[in-house]
């Protein structure tokens, strides 16, 4: 299975608002921590290694091509 990048969110605007709301009142460090927990929870939900690696590549794309290549090898 490959990463689904077509629109898939059931309620896009509500999701986005909830994502921002999740961080309300947190300082940057605590927000980082909450983001990390969110990523881990979602990653476990997805499970498939190839999909996760592809998502990491997409997230990283354009910032540093060398890292994208390393991620591709990890897949």
């Amino acid at each position: 299975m490959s990463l689904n990048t077509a629109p898939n969110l059931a309620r896009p605007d509500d999701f986005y608002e909830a994502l921002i709301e999740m961080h309300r009142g947190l300082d940057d460090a605590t927000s980082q921590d909450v983001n990390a927990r969110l990523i881990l929870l979602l990653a476990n939900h997805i499970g498939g290694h190839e999909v996760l690696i592809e998502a990491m590549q997409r997230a990283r794309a354009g910032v540093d091509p060398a890292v994208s290549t390393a991620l591709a090898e990890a897949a």
Partner: protein
Amino acid sequence: MNPTPAIDYQQQRFTYQPCLEQTRPADAAVHPVVVIGAGPVGLVTAIDLARQGIRVVLVDEDDTLSSGSRAICFAKRTLDIFDRIGCGQRMVDKGVGWNRGKVFLREEAIYEFDLLPECGHARPAFINLQQYYVEGYLLEQARQHSLIELRWKSRVSAIAHHADHEALTVETPEGSYLLKARYVVAADGSRSPLRKMMGLESVGHTFRDRFLIADVKMAAPFPAERWFWFDPPFHPNQSVLLHRQPDDVWRIDFQLGWDADPVLERTPERVIPRVQALLGKDAQFTLEWVSVYTFSCVRMDRFRHGRVLFVGDAAHCVSPFGARGANSGIQDAENLAWKLAFVLQGKAPDSLLDSYASEREFAADENLLNSTRSTDFITPKSAVSRCFRDAVLALAHEHAFARRLVNSGRLSLPATLHGSLLSSADSAPFHGAMQAGAPCTDAPVLTDTIPGWLLPHLGDQFVAMIFAPPASLSAALLPALVRLTEGGLPLRLLFVSGAQASAEDHTVLSALGDGAVQVQDIEGLVAQRYDGQPHTCYLIRPDQHVCARWRTVDAAALAQALQRATGHEPAAQPAPVPDAACYLCMT
């Protein structure tokens, strides 16, 4: 239980004696093998070579064994090797056996593991035993071999390469001499002087963290388990590891952080309060050993340089989480010993030694990968790495998936030598872990109604393990099998059957020669673990790794695989190497 009274191995001193090169230099010949370094890896190399009939000179720069707290966890595979070379029982009798570990986050146990969840193995997953006992027992074993000459206070200071030998300059209390050898095994430790003399490096990375090792002697109620704490109340924001050793000695590793002062931290004024915080203010204990260390994950690019073979810490170093240092070094030793013997005895080409390098470089990478991952978890290298680590620990309270990510060390398992050029590919489907390159697993067997174990029957020569009673083989096959047992690459025959040996079996066994043995698979576990169906046949190396297997007994196929396993014939198609994630099936 011990055959000798208690010896203080840390206090033992060994006598320097002048050698033939010094007393009668004209009579000194080129030795087959010189091993540098009488640590656990050098000693196992020497003993294993002697078992193969090879004369060995073992030189060591001082006159003592290890002291203090160094390697302590010896894995099942290492115990199987110690059994094979004749000193496993002493190690197990003295050591503290354990299979279970617990990981704590603050005060809560968040993760438990059992490293040997199945029955039917002679040895536990691990024993804890101070390195000086291991070296002491190995040394006493080495001394029973007349082929091993030990030279204490003999420091190698230079090496010169020649076409057919290496010439080592050895410094002694009575001056220096030249020591010549066809092959040199460098087991001279992580700082390997020989490696430096040859202008070689071991590269990788050093972790920016410091750890305090405190060995304390006390009567304590903790069970014989590996306990690891993240952020415990008695040592906040850092990790702590507790192991039980023999003689009521407990090893405690405290993570200190990079900024800790290594000199100050090893003073009793600093150490005792840390131990008291763990054990309670009133705990009665004495400090046996204290040190502060940092660690590295490094390896040499190649473990073979001509006639010089690097083994153990000289070739590769890992962090201690996972017990992959001494254990992997001892596997290096046994991988190398039979190959060196075969080459020196003219049974195999020199190129067989290249397979030592490629197989153990592969194994080192696996150990480095596991060790580096554990260390990155325990000592995160960046703010974001720390952030994810803390998030995993926070989620681990509630969520089983996060507990699986907690990495306090993935403990030493022997490498399956995927892609080894010595292996032959399967020609029929098989189930289970005993694929080509895998170290043989143990199982209970009966020999003439006496209970025992499979591994001792594999010994340290090539073995064909046949899942059939000997009398069931076709008469036409027997002469071909006898020829294999008597050939230039001798093969022993081991028959595994569900039933006891019959009179007909005994008749066939005696016709097959002295080395042929039949064992009864009393619980069916050999057949289960090796996917042994009637007439399944395995070819097993002298280091007890599988190198080929078939569904029928075919003498020609055995002969061909034996040629390949001794480097006479390149493998047509090395088996594909699976991706790294597959290695991490443990815990």
